[in-house]
């Protein structure tokens, strides 16, 4: 880590401020009704926050290619978890004579 440039403090405070603002936005949106889009909007805001944390707070932006691959594989594995779990939820059918 020591061989990377240390980011100026204002970058951290900037990211921190943006995260707080987005949290406020999430809270505000929770009281509005966008119909089907409710979940989508909440998830989009959450994703933006994730990107901010990963790139700046976790220093992935200034890291070597190898570290980035490891960070990315974490998300790939998350997709495996979601994808295969959904393969169950999206294809559940009731067994005849059971319900």
């Amino acid at each position, binding site marked *: 880590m020591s061989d990377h440039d240390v980011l100026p403090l204002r970058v951290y405070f900037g990211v921190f401020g943006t995260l707080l603002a987005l949290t406020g936005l999430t809270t505000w949106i929770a009281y509005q009704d966008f119909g089907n889009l409710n979940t989508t909007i909440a998830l989009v805001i959450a994703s933006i926050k994730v990107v901010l944390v990963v790139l700046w707070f976790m220093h992935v932006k200034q890291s070597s290619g190898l570290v980035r691959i490891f960070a990315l594989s974490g998300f790939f594995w998350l997709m495996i*978890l979601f994808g295969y779990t959904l393969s169950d939820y999206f294809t559940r059918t009731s067994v005849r004579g059971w319900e």
Partner: protein
Amino acid sequence: MSVPGAATARTAEPSNYLNAEYSIKSWFLTLDHKRIGLLYLAGLTFFFTLGGLFAVLIRLELLTPEGDLFQSETYNKLFTMHGIFMVFFFLLPSIPAVLGNFFLPLMIGARDLAFPKLNLLSWYIYMVGGLFTLYAMVAGGVDTGWTFYTPYSSVYANSHVIAAALGIFISGFSSILTGVNFIATIHTMRAPGLTWFRMPLFVWAHYATSLIMVLGTPVIAITIVLVAIERLFGVGIFDPAKGGDPILFQHLFWFYSHPAVYIMILPGMGVISEIVACFSRKRIFGYHIIAMSSLAIAVLGFLVWGHHMFVSGQSIYAGILFSLLSMLVAIPSAIKVFNWTATLYRGSIRFDTPMLYTLGFIGLFTIGGLTGIFLASLAVDVHVHDTYFIVAHFHYVMVGGMVMAYLGGLHFYWPKMFGRLYPETLAKIAAVMIFVGFNLTFFPQFLLGYLGMPRRYHAYPEEFQVLNVLSTAGASILGLGFALPMGYLIWSLFRGKPAGNNPWGASGLEWQTQSPPISHNFDEVPIVTEEAYAYDTLRPPAAASPEQEEVLHV
């Protein structure tokens, strides 16, 4: 583990990691990967013994068809505590934490792991996690089974679920730290000349294992937190009465816990590769493909978890998918078995104790693996699900595979770790007893399961008694077999013959340094000029006879 061996021969022995310092502080605040490995060995032995005592009680209850020794609730707690201690506090850390910690830096010619302080922290975290679970046990135990299935665990169980789960949650972080440490070490600290494809297969196996530890363990941690949240605050996550889905728990749990099987078995496979090559005195057959099959197992292992849920109400289409993928993961495991067998072929084989465990591993793991294929088939699984067939299957993999590899590795590396030899004849007797006792314990359970005896009950119909008596008889032989090494290995610390630096004539950097190794491992940084397992060019401990020469060069 104290340092008695060093104490008796203090004057004669050259400086090493054991006699460098004697204070208690020098052990409990050590940053030496070798000493941390021994701290883990002490902790693991404690939890293994505890888990073993629970197994003894289970087998005693099952001696008779009536549930006469324990109440059913007590019995539920017994098998739960057996499972929790054995899986989370013995099997998962075992080889990586003891042999991995001790030998990974030695094998790659490094002075220590990349993060020695994280390494010490991981031991403390492991012990704190273990103490939480011990507290749960003393306070009255847990009865959910080691799998913590919801909604029973999150709503209905009246036992100490949270304390036990918290212990597992905490110990998970020790696993993550170990994984991160190993990955960083292998990437950055290899000796000059040690390219990736010159690394011993033990190191490859630990690399693959570390990937699973880092990628999988966070999921079980979060899952445990979700169970605790539902239990404490009544938030509907898994409880169908509150709109939750109990199957979601099983998805999350097995997303980690199936790959966790490979956290347990992969390091064992690494040990087996080392021993097979050494005691066949041959280059290992198919080095590259064994290395790659470790990575393939690590990745494919994450795609098969649904095979635990065929009868849970999971979608039948997902079931088909998971069944097919489970067949796929059998391939890299089979590749390893075939390669070890091919390594044996026309080798000049020596049947020392580590090799006996290794041959046991190959046979028993094959049975465990093949019965796994039965279970991965949708229709067969419906018949044997939740029966003793399952119990037999995973004990063949975990005990017949993993524990055999652990003991084989411990015997193989013991002379290097302590500079002393154990009594060979006694060790061989113990190895044979463990092999016989193990098969007598668990083979009847395949039959019991196939005949329909369900797992996790303290009573059973009378027609199953004969097989259960055989199983309990086997368990007593097995127990004695495990007690023997505990005795003679400790004895060897005081009285064992000096081992010399390389008693097996093994290749590898770890055998080129002194036994026991000096604190900083190597006097000068070793330079690697050849592949691992260059046994064709290496002299056996006693100079090779002409016949052996011939065999070696075929």
